[in-house]
C-alpha cells in the first residue's frame, strides 16, 4: 500500500464549491494511483484530525483565503506535514496583488498600471475625494476594479466611465480589505502554467480564454460552455516565447515551487502584461492547469500523482 495523502479542500472561502470540485477530482486520481486518500474539509477539526491521522503528505486543493494566502501552508509546516505547491512566502506574495504587482514592476515584468486602495484609506483618510485622479493614474478608461486579495475573479467589475468607479470599488471591497484599480488591457487572455515535477520548472503551453460574455469572470470560469479555450494559444512564435519567459520569471521571482499559474493578457501590439500569479490553480473539469498539462501529454492522474510525489519526496 502506498502512502497516505490528505487532500485538503472546501473551507469557508467564497471559492468553497470550486475547491470541493477540485478536491474530489484530485482525491479520485490519487485513489486510482493506489494511495490511501484522506479527503479533509477545513473545519475546526482539521488540525486534530491531521495530528491523529498523521498523513505522509497533504495535497492542497483549497482556493482562496486560508488555502492560497499562506495560512494552511504555515499550519502544515508547523505540523511537519509536507505539502504540494508553493510555500508560505510565495503564497503570501502572490495572494496580495498589490504586493505581487509591485514586485513585477520593480523587476521589469510588465503589468498593467494600477493603484491600490484599502477600505481604511476611504474610511479614515478621505480617499474617496481623490477618485477623480484615478483614471489618469492608470492611463484612462476602460479600467478594471477587483479585490486585491481574491482569486477566481469574484468582485471584479469592468468600468468604462467615472461615475461607475465608486460603485465598483464598493463592490470589490465587499470581498476584502483592499481593492486595486487597474488599466483594462484589451487583448488575448492567457493562463500560463509552470510545472516542476522534479526536473526543474517547465512552462506549459499557454491556454487562451475567450469568454462569450466578453468578461472572464467567476461565472465564465466555472460554467462549461461560457468560455472557449485554445491550447496552445493562438500567438506568434515571438509572442509565445516572450509569454513563456515571463511566466518562468514570475514563478522564480515569487519563489514558487511545484506549480503556479500566471495569468496574462497580450495587448493588440503584442506586448504581454502579467495580471497575477495563482499558487493553488483550479483542478476542476474546466480548469486551465490540467488543460495545459494535457497538451503536453501529462494526463490528469499523472499530473496529480507527480505533484503529490514532489511533496512526499520532499522535493522543492
Amino acid at each position, binding site marked *: 500500500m502506498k502512502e497516505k495523502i490528505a487532500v485538503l479542500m472546501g473551507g469557508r472561502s467564497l471559492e468553497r*464549491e470550486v475547491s470541493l470540485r477540485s478536491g474530489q477530482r484530485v482525491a479520485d486520481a490519487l485513489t486510482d494511483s493506489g494511495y490511501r486518500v484522506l479527503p*479533509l474539509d477545513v473545519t475546526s477539526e482539521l488540525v486534530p*484530525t491531521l495530528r491523529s491521522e498523521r498523513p505522509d503528505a497533504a495535497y492542497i486543493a483549497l482556493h482562496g483565503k486560508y488555502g492560497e494566502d499562506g495560512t494552511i501552508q504555515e499550519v502544515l509546516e508547523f505540523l511537519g506535514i509536507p505539502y504540494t505547491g508553493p510555500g508560505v512566502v510565495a503564497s503570501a506574495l502572490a495572494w496580495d496583488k498589490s504586493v505581487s504587482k509591485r514586485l513585477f514592476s520593480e523587476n521589469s515584468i510588465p503589468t498593467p498600471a494600477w493603484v491600490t486602495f484599502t477600505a481604511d484609506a*476611504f*474610511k479614515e483618510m478621505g480617499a474617496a475625494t481623490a477618485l477623480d485622479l484615478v483614471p489618469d493614474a492608470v492611463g484612462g478608461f476602460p479600467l478594471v476594479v477587483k479585490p486585491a486579495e481574491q482569486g477566481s475573479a469574484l468582485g471584479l467589475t469592468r468600468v468604462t466611465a467615472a461615475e461607475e468607479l465608486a460603485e465598483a470599488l464598493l463592490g470589490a471591497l465587499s470581498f476584502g480589505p483592499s481593492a486595486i484599480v487597474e488599466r483594462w488591457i484589451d487583448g488575448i487572455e492567457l493562463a500560463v502554467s509552470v510545472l516542476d515535477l522534479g526536473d526543474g520548472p517547465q512552462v506549459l503551453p499557454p491556454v487562451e480564454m475567450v469568454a462569450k460574455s466578453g468578461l472572464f469572470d467567476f461565472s465564465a470560469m466555472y460554467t462549461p460552455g461560457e468560455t472557449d479555450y485554445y491550447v496552445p494559444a493562438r500567438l506568434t512564435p515571438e509572442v509565445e516565447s516572450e509569454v513563456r519567459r515571463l511566466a518562468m520569471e514570475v514563478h522564480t521571482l515569487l519563489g514558487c515551487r511545484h506549480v503556479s499559474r500566471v495569468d496574462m493578457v497580450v495587448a493588440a501590439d503584442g506586448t504581454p502584461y502579467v495580471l497575477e500569479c495563482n499558487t493553488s490553480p483550479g483542478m476542476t473539469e474546466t480548469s486551465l492547469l490540467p488543460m495545459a498539462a494535457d497538451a503536453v501529454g501529462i494526463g490528469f492522474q499523472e499530473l496529480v500523482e507527480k505533484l503529490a510525489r514532489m511533496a512526499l519526496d520532499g522535493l522543492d
Partner: protein
Amino acid sequence: MMGTARIVFDRWDGRYAQRMGDVRSSATRDLFAAASRSDIISFAGGMPEISRVPADAVASAAAEAIRDFGSEALQYGSSEGRPQLRGAIVELMAEIGVRARQEDIIVTAGAQQALDLLAKIFLDPGDVIITEGPTYLGALQAFSAYQPRVICVPMDEQGMDTDVLAAELAALGPRGAKFIYTIPNFQNPGGVTMSAGRRRKLLELAREYDIPVIEDDPYGRLRFDGGHMRPLRALDEDVIYLGTFSKIFAPGLRLGWVIAPRPILGKVLLAKQAADLCGSAYAQITAERYFAGTRWRRVLQDLTRVYGERRDAMLEALEEHFPAEAEWTVPEGGFFVWVRMPAFLDLKALLPEAIEHGVTYVAGDAFFPDGRTGRNCMRLAFCYATPDAIREGIRRLAEVVEDRLELYRAFQVAGALPDTMTAREVPA
C-alpha cells in the same frame, strides 16, 4: 469526537441525469445553514413555533387514529386523500371565502409535493414560467428539476408588479408561459401582500393570455393586522390553489392540498399515483381528529399572536438598530421580513462575518433563479426566535452591516457616489 473534517464523496457523481445539474444547491449555503453553534441566533429558517401546538391534543388525535381507525390508518388509502380530511379542507376553505367541493381537492405531502407534481404535469425543458422575484426557494427547487426558463416579475408594497407582468406577457404572447406562480399573502421571502387591485389585474392578464395561475397560500391564516384579502381562487375558479397544514397545525405531518379545475386535478392525480400511490392515512386521520374539535382555533390564535409579537420585536429592533440606508418590508402576517441594502453591499459575502458575530440569515440571491440577483438583500425569519433573541440578533446584525456602511458613507461624504446610488428605492 474527532474526524468531522472528513469529507465523503459521491461515488456516483457523473452518472446522474442532466436535469439534476439544474437543481441549485449551494455548498456555501448548506455550510452556513449547518452552522449550528448554540450561541448563533438564526433568522435563516422558516420553522413554525411547534412548541405552541399542544402535545396532548396531538397525542389524543394520533391515539384515536390508531385505536379507532387502525385498519384504515395503517392501510393504503385513496390517492386523492381521505374524504373526511377533504371535507375538513372544504370547511377551512369556506372560512377564507373559497367555495370548493371534496372532488376539487387532492391531499398532498405538504404543498411542496403539489409544487413538484404541478411542475411535472406542466413543464417540458425550456418552457417559460413566471414567478415573483424574489420567490420561494423551495418552489424554484421543485420547478428547476423540470428545466424551465423562469421569468421573475418584481414586487412593490402591493405585491407583484402587474405592469411589468403585462409587458412580459405581451412579449411572450398568448399561452407564452406554462403558468404564473404567486404567493399573494405575506410572500416568502418578500413579506408583502398583493393588493385587491393587483389580484384582479393578475387574473385579468392570466385570462387574456390564457395562462394558469398557481396560488401558493401557506401563511394566509397567520394575519396579525390589516383586513382579510380574498384569495385568487375565490375570484376565479380556474386558479390552482395550494394550501398546507404545516403552519396551522404542524409540518411534521406533511399534509397539504391542491385545489384545481377537474382536468388539471386528474393529471395531478396520475402524477401523485406515480410518485407515492397515496399519502399517509395515519397522518390524515390524525389531522381529521385534531380539526374535529374547536381547540385548534385557539391554538391558531395563539400562534398568530406569538408570531405577531415576534414581527413587532423584529420591526422595532430594525428601526432602533439598522442604519438609514437599509429598507425593509412590513409584513401584515406570515414569517418573513425582506431587507434591502444599497446595491453595492454584498450580503452573501457578509454572511461569514455575520456568523462570526453570532447571527445568520439567508442572502437574497437564494430566492432568484439566476443565483446572482438580490445579493444586496436578505430574508429575516422572525417566526422561530423569541422576541429577546430577535432584538439581540438584530443588534448583532446591525453591527456587521454598519461596519460596511461606514465605507459607503465615506464615499457619500466625498460626493463620489452617483445619484442613482443614493436615491431611495422601493423595497422588495
